[in-house]
């Protein structure tokens, strides 16, 4: 029997998935949450070295949108794609991944922690939803 390949394994697909995730996060955050996020972290760069993927979440008081990655981003979250997926699907919490050194957050300080925490649950929910949407629409090989 031929091995079934993951329909979302390519970097391009993963970027699209993350872009959809950001769109879904935008729908989940209230106006005041968006405003707080934009004030504390107007730009969050997400880096997934194993998937060769980087993208930027740009936050304004009006909306969250995808922006191109930059060289010296002030706030960077770096992890493996599998770390994000394990957390989104409840296989391993982000806390456990953090303790194991699988998540690196550059630029974090106590002034920003609250806004970052505010983003965690919507992010995991949105990634899971985006993944399920894409899996449902992907053709079975």
């Amino acid at each position, binding site marked *: 029997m031929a091995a079934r390949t993951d329909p979302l394994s390519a970097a391009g697909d993963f970027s699209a998935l993350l872009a959809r995730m950001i769109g879904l996060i935008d729908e989940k955050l209230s106006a005041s949450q968006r405003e707080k996020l934009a004030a504390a972290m107007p730009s969050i760069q997400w880096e997934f070295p194993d998937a060769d993927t980087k993208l930027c979440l740009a936050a304004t008081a009006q909306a969250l949108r995808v922006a191109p990655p930059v060289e010296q981003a002030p706030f960077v979250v770096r992890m493996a794609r599998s770390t994000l997926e394990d957390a989104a699907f409840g296989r391993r*919490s982000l*806390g*456990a991944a953090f*303790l194991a*050194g699988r998540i690196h957050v550059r630029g974090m*300080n106590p*002034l920003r*922690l*609250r806004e970052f925490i505010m983003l965690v649950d919507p992010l995991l929910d949105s990634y899971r939803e985006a993944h399920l949407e894409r899996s449902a629409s992907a053709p079975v090989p």
Partner: protein
Amino acid sequence: MNVPHPRLFRDRDADPGVLRGKTIAILGYGLLGQPLGLNLRDSLGGDPEPARVIVGSDDAPSSQRARADGFDVHSLVDAASVADIALMLLPDEVQPDLMPAIGAALRPGSSLLFASGYALAYRLVTPPEGVDVILFAPRMGGEAIRQRFLDGRGYMAYVGVERDSSGEAWKRLLGLAAAGGSLTFGALEMTAKQEVVLDLFVEQAFGPWMGAALLSAFHVGAEAGLPPLGLLMELYLSGEMSETFAQMARDGFLPSTLTHGFAASFGGMTRALSIDREQMAEQMRGILSEIEGGSFAEALQDEYKNGYPCRPFLDKVVGDDDIISRTEQDYRRM
């Protein structure tokens, strides 16, 4: 780098009679309030004209604990109003809200002691005019404060006078430091700002590197197939590491590195050379700047005013079902 050493005070520098007949109010009966209250009462109770140690607390569980320990318990304001010396032992971040009422209750000529320089250094409180403002900041956790007092060993503290209204602020402070059990070991003179910056800097600049090094060593070793329990033993569970720290304090940091055998110093020193210390130092400078400039205090006050919104997340990370906690539990069941 040419900063002079601060003054070091010992029992011989304190006048034990200075607290005779005074009323000492312990404001807050928590991590520090309980051991300091008990130490002061034990030290001063035998005097022919003993000082009276009372507790001020508006928190029901703390009040109950203080009563169980045999103290007269009053509200914070009532205790402050009868105090010759009031010890402000409430959490740093709540002091600004409570200070106006407590300050208004204090009598001119009394002394207000802070166990941390935080609220003073960041100007979050304004103690009333006519009151001494003194600092006695133990460098030891509550349990150890009590145990080391009972053992007669004492413990390090930082002491300082921020304002001397009574003319005897230093005498009162050193009397309290001695009766509280610190001066058997010794107390260093510090300003409130120096105390809080030292405390927060080591917590935030050194602590996370030490924690991260420990976690990384554990996970790298465990992923490579080393026994998790053996890793924890090497790192802290056997007590060897805490003995090493005790040895550093006793024999000196560098001399202690030579007492673990040549293999340990040969391997450790050569590996330490390859660590990017400049990167580490740069991060530490940034942290120090945020602490000195007050932005950390601003974040902590904001967290308090908003009902500690970050606490559930931090508690969840610490309380998560991780391999280290499971390994510790397995060991304790053995």
